[in-house]
């Protein structure tokens, strides 16, 4: 039920039919943006694609946050407590800044 791949919007459809073209490392396909009508989707945005429909807009900041968390996994319990559990709250910590891989 779950094969969904991140893709980059490269073009929006001209008409109002919620169509766009998405690209995944050089493979292009039309996707339907009908499930993301409440978001503003622009070329360059990344979306999660499942059966030709965009399911969700991918949050770059959440992804970067996750990478930061993963990078410090295994460091002292105290540091982990300070960060309070992998971004459950909205606080973003500033220690150990490390760019997310791209």
């Amino acid at each position, binding site marked *: *039920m*779950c*094969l969904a*791949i991140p*893709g980059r919007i490269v073009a929006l459809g001209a008409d109002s039919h919620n169509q766009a073209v998405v690209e*995944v*490392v*050089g*493979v*292009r*396909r*039309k996707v339907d943006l009908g499930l993301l009508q409440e978001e503003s989707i622009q070329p360059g945005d990344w979306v999660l*694609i*499942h*059966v*030709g429909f965009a399911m969700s807009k991918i949050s770059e900041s959440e992804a970067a946050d996750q990478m930061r968390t993963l990078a410090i996994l295994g460091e002292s319990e105290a540091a982990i407590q300070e960060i309070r559990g992998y971004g459950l709250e909205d606080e973003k910590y500033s220690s150990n800044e490390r760019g997310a891989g791209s």
Partner: protein
Amino acid sequence: MAISANKIKFREPQIEMAHGAGGIASRRLVEGLFAPLLFGAASGPLGDAAHIQLNGTRIAVTTDSFVVKPLRFPGGSIGELAINGTVNDLAVSGARAEAMVVTFVLEAGLPTDVLEAEVRAMALAAEQADVRIAGGDTKVVEHGKADNMYITTTGIGRVIPGVSVRPDSVRPGDHILLSGPIGDHGVTILLARGELDMEAEIQSDTRSVFPLVESLVESAGTGVRWMRDPTRGGVATSLNELARDCGLAIALFEQTIPVRDPVRGACELLGLDPLHIANEGQFLAVVAPEQAGRALEALRSTPGGAEARIIGEVREQPPACVFVTTSYGGARLVDMLVGDPLPRIC
């Protein structure tokens, strides 16, 4: 692995599509029905081509039929596949293709210009592969009975002196070499059918691999234990056949397997594994560890071989298995597919 003479082990009541897909079912048909009746007790493991002694010369002979939809696709067409496919089967058995005969089964109603385009493609491919088309046969069948055209090519060639490739010469510690990126052809065909509405800069890799094989054999000589061109069923099927024939394990290192970006993208989108996807211009070789480095260099410095890699090695355990290891220490088995790889959404 000798096959008992005349003992038919194929018990299925009818032929299904899977029997032609090049995987487990195909093997059952060949080993269970054709081999006992046609090849007799003296035959060994089945290879891409048969070698026959004629007056002191080793001659290789092979045949293959080509059924492709659509006939034309980015990077080639059925005609080129028909020539290169047979040239390659001879090449990986250690032989230079010398001559070929061609059979056409044509569907009534096929436009002549379509046929002409394929014949031209074949002429060009034969010239590029330096093989002579010596003759052939044509049949025409009723409309609806041949999917436009079926082409069969039968090729003969001379075995390169000193080359002997057989699964039982494979030893633990041997290296697995791959001539270049995988998955291009199969993904091209899948996308060219148009049903998936996807576009990508991918084309079939159809070509003669003989120049690369020749380079390899020149540099590694008897260190080349086994070769195969991973066509239908992909690298996974070819290596599983080897593993079963030699009883050893084949360990592949995932991060070394070359896959072009768009092929990877299409496979991720469709839930396919590049290891199961057909190739028409690549080959696998098992080479003794002492010669593997030199062999790789030889491939890389031959035109068309720049992307050759060592992708794995032969081990003792677990027997008759092919598995892939990841760089973080995870492992998974790679088995032969039942039929053709199918896109999935789950």
